[in-house]
């Protein structure tokens, strides 16, 4: 490796450490959020330097759009909650200055026991990771086996072959984790999130122009990455995140996205990825193959189908995460929710 490359990698490592420390120790949660967003972006660059474009794509898709939007929107909810708190009244800003993220955004003082637990588990994880690197077998473990069977997997990109064919089980359960997170949100707050409300700020000319230009491009990019997964870095997860981000963009501008669809279609959209995996797995078992084993001749088409279903579900789920948080404690949303529930009770 040449000295300039060592210089670049060293600089990225240093920047990562500084950003991580600042994200933990900044005086306000809003500053922490900014540091954390920057950390995600630098992390994507680090993955690129490690020659791992698949991970870099996933990190970029989550880190640039979704993560920042969720953090900033959650801070808004914290800020509103603290406004109703009588103790927070004393921290009114001086006249002429409007406090966007008031008392709720101040970093809570650290408690000793959780700090010790977090530090201990981080230390344990670091030790395990170092040990895993030391024990890495020569020649990269299963790389040779993955390359050898690539022709039979139905795709041309080894990472996609691992994710969708060799280790389809893992991907299926990962889609399940997202679904479980969504169900958790439903349990915590009901289905209010799906009843979308009009934003308080209607989009101006610039924003509506931007959204008209960006939203189709995002959907196009999602389709492109989904297709690309067959032969190059890309695939269902990255594609789904971009799809979900397009939904978030439309929602931020006050467009109705999910409430236009019948509730049954929304539920199907959320369940599609997990369900298609399950149907394929079950069908494979019934025809005497192993769970999630594709018939070799049609593996390529089936993988594309499963990936498309997974991408749609991931997009729906990620959008629903945001939609739920964004409309939490808005009275209109609850009215819509009540109306929708009433409609559902019809025989």
């Amino acid at each position, binding site marked *: 490796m040449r000295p300039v490359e060592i210089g670049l990698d060293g*600089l990225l490592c240093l920047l990562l450490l500084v950003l991580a420390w600042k994200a933990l120790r900044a005086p306000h949660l809003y*500053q922490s959020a900014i540091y954390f967003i920057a950390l995600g972006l630098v992390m994507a*660059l680090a993955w690129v330097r490690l020659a791992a474009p698949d991970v870099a794509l996933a990190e*970029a898709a989550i880190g*640039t*759009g979704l993560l920042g*939007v969720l953090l900033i*929107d959650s801070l808004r909810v914290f800020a509103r909650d603290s406004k109703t708190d009588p103790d927070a009244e004393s921290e009114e800003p001086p006249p002429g200055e*409007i406090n966007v993220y008031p008392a709720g955004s101040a970093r809570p003082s650290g408690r000793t026991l959780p700090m010790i637990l977090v530090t201990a588990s981080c230390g344990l994880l670091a030790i395990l990771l170092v040990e895993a690197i030391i024990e890495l077998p020569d020649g990269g473990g299963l790389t040779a086996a993955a390359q050898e069977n690539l022709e039979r997997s139905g795709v041309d990109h080894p990472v996609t072959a691992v994710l969708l064919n060799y280790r389809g089980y893992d991907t299926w359960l990962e889609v399940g984790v997202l679904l479980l997170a969504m169900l958790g949100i439903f349990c915590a707050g009901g289905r209010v999130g799906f009843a979308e409300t009009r934003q308080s700020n209607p989009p101006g000319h610039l*924003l509506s122009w931007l959204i008209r230009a960006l939203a189709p491009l995002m959907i196009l990019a999602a389709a492109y990455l989904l297709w690309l997964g067959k032969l190059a870095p890309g695939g269902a997860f990255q594609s789904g995140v971009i799809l979900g981000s397009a939904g978030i963009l439309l929602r931020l501008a006050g467009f109705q996205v999910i409430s236009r669809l019948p509730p049954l279609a929304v539920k199907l959209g959320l369940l599609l990825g997990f369900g298609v995996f399950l149907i394929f797995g079950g069908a494979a078992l019934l025809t005497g193959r192993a769970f999630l084993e594709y018939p070799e001749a049609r593996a390529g088409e089936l993988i594309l189908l499963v990936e498309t279903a997974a991408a749609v579900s991931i997009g729906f789920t990620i959008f629903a995460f945001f939609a739920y948080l964004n409309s939490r404690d808005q009275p209109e949303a609850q009215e819509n929710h009540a109306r929708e529930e009433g409609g559902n009770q019809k025989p």
Partner: protein
Amino acid sequence: MDTFYVALAIFLVLNVAASLIRVIRGPTAADRLMTAQLFGTTGVALLLLLAEASGQPAFRNVALIFALLAILIVICFVQTTGSAAGPGNREA
């Protein structure tokens, strides 16, 4: 030529590192947000340089994602705090 690209990349990383001073000093929430934006836009340039330097066109797709999604944070900020707070909003 590759060395030139990597040297340019180092210059850009130093640039974004310098922008962190705006997160520390603010003074407004919008100033701090601009740092996150600078990481996104400079990140696009960095990724394109690294794609050329390493000869891996796949890195350009990462740049594509950066370019498409980095704007979401600003839109979210403007739509949830924007017109109500005005241009001179202070967050602390």
